[in-house]
């Protein structure tokens, strides 16, 4: 008869079961997760990517036209990756049409993948988005609005989780110098995108665009800020070459960041 070996205090079977149920419930409420395919972002995001049944907000870093374009392309790239399956469409809802569709196609969102809806005002637009989200037949819904209060974001979030459709809410600037992300919101993630100077090429010409991608807020995780290369014709972002090289050199940096998250 030997003494039982020492073991740390373990939770009982009931406690474990309860914890497992909680985890399962939370995981079931979330849709399929869409990873960015860029190591650092996916590590830093709580879910390992964008929640496929949640509300995500994007806004430009400043009211300038090129930041606006970078933000639009960022949203278009995400929508293109959500709508990558054949014969599915994303809905792009907006009130004033100044998009240039060939540019969207070059971010991966071809004309057969995007259905446009033009509303008369933001309220009508948000109602359209809510219907579209609940229907569940779309791959993604993108909306450009100037004003959406907390109630509206709550409704969108509920509709998104009900229909299992991701929602990208692009908040445009209402007043010069006041970031639209200062409004309260229930979004899963909130992003702020700005355009940066690209890496100079060795020959004359304009290189691949460079953005500052800042995650202002996410549920259950810390904010972060990264410098990334603009999305390609499939909507994929990439790390700048210098950072890529550095990541190879110091491989443990990613891991440390992952633990911090």
């Amino acid at each position, binding site marked *: 008869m030997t003494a039982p070996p020492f073991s740390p205090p373990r939770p009982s079977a009931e406690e474990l079961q309860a914890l497992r149920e909680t985890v399962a419930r939370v995981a079931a409420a979330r849709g399929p997760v869409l990873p960015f395919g860029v190591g650092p972002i996916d590590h830093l995001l709580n879910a390992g990517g964008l929640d496929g049944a949640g509300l995500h907000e994007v806004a430009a870093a400043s009211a*300038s*036209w*090129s930041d*606006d*374009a*970078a*933000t*639009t*392309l*960022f949203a*278009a790239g995400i929508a293109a990756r959500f709508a990558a399956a*054949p*014969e*599915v*469409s994303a809905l792009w809802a907006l009130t004033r049409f*100044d*998009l*240039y*569709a*060939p*540019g*969207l*196609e*070059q*971010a991966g969102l*071809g*004309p*057969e993948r*995007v*259905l*446009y*809806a*033009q*509303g*008369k005002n933001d309220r*009508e637009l948000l*109602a*359209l988005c809510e*219907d*579209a989200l609940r*229907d*569940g*037949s*779309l791959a993604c819904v993108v909306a450009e609005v100037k004003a959406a209060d907390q109630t509206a974001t709550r409704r969108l979030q509920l509709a998104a989780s009900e229909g299992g459709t991701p929602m990208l809410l692009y908040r445009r600037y209402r007043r010069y110098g006041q970031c639209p992300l200062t409004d309260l919101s229930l979004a899963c993630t909130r992003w702020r995108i*700005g*355009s*940066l*100077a*690209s890496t*100079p*090429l060795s020959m*004359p*010409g*304009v*290189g691949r*665009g*460079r*953005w500052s991608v800042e995650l202002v807020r996410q549920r259950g995780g810390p904010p972060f800020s990264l410098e990334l290369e*603009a999305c390609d*014709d499939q909507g994929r972002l990439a790390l700048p070459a210098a950072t890529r090289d550095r990541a190879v050199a110091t491989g443990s940096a990613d891991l440390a960041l992952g633990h911090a998250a």
Partner: protein
Amino acid sequence: MRELGRRSEAAAPVFRLSRADDGCPSPGASIAPPPLPLWGARPTILVARTGQRDVVTAACPLALDLGLAPGMAAAHARALVTDLDVYEAAPEADRAWLDRLALHAVRHWTPTAAVSGSDGLWLDLTGTTHLFGGEARFAARLLSFVRRLGFTACVAIAGTPGAAHALARFGGAATLVLPEGREGEALAGLPLRALRLAPEALASAARFGIERIADLYPMPRGPLARRLGRGAVERLDQARGFLPEPIVPVVPFEMPCAERRLLEPIATAEAIEQVISDLVADLVADLRERGLGLRAAVLRCERVDAREQLVTVGTARATRDAKHLVRLFRLRIDRIEPGLGIEAMALAAPQVEPLGAEVIGTGFDSGPRAPDLAPLVDQLAGRAGEGALFRLEGRESDVPERAIGRTGPLAQPSGWPAWPRPIRMLARPEALSGVVALLPDHPPRRFAWRGRSYRVVAGDGPERIHGEWWRTTREMWAVRDYFRVEAETGERFWLFRRGDAIEDRTGDLSWYMHGVFG
């Protein structure tokens, strides 16, 4: 004197657009008047191409008086009469008119009507003429009706279709009412071709010297059938009433419709929705039976004050899904003003398309089916309007503004060539100021736009786009040279210069901002 009057009077439309007869016209729609007769002061003929030559198929009264007749060669007719109007015959259009007249007859005069040959109608008037005051009155009425439409006609009323057919074409009177049982006598003097015989039978009859129908009466039937064929004997018997000849009537399209008359007037949204779902169930059952799907539905609500409220929904694709239709109407219930109450509601489908059964997955084929967007499109269109939902498609133009066009929300549009294009574009290009650029092929070094100056660090281009001279003469020599530039602060713009900097007429070398890259 007419010439001295006002010249700005609206002229009567000569070529009035008549509604296309798509097989499902609304009931009660009367026939629109046809184009005014084309013949006037000049003789007119219609010609059709047969083989190597044009043959006259019809001639106006003036031309008939001048000795032109159908069957003549068009060249011969032109030689006889110099100032002759010649038009192409349009047998399909004639046939369409006859079909519409037959439909009109079925709706207004008799349940049994059919098109007869290429130039006539059969109406079975059994038991219907008393509604119009007798056969003679009905014939007069018919004549005045077609005269109002701009046609001339001959009416013959007889006991058999064959006799009526023959008398209308060869009887020589505008109106002929034949008493019962006199077909044999009336037909006796008519030529043999009045009997609708086959061409071979007519040829052999001519060989035997038979010209009139009366010549056939005394002949023994056996030899007659051997020489002219059985068909000839049958036609003769049908015309005289010894053999039946049924008319295959035109069946008009009935618009699917459901109606509910209510015991008590209703005014609440819940009650209206209940009635709507009942009506939709009735309509859907009707549609399913007939294999149709609706593209548009009209709900008519009759109020107690004898006013009508109309609510219309349209669908992006033919459907008979009751749940979907009820949802579409539910979005519009708030547009119904019940007033003191609604006492009757009717739901009709004015626009329908064939819709067969749909194959659902057998369970063996792998992969999920592509989601159907049509219900969502209808729902969103119900909220925001028909034009609010669209897709963009590529148009064949290199000018950036003209390369995109709107198309329907369920279309599968094609894309654009992969030249670098901006994500957002100005509706109208805006002029740049203070541009410093090396001509002809370099992007600007610096420029100012909207009150800010930019120093350019990198640029791509030029991409030369020529004006579309086939649109307007102003674009005959126009050239735009597009550059993609990056400013020092990270902005990436799409600029263009008018003119190629070599030829003066290609443009004035002014610079414009057109779009922005992310």
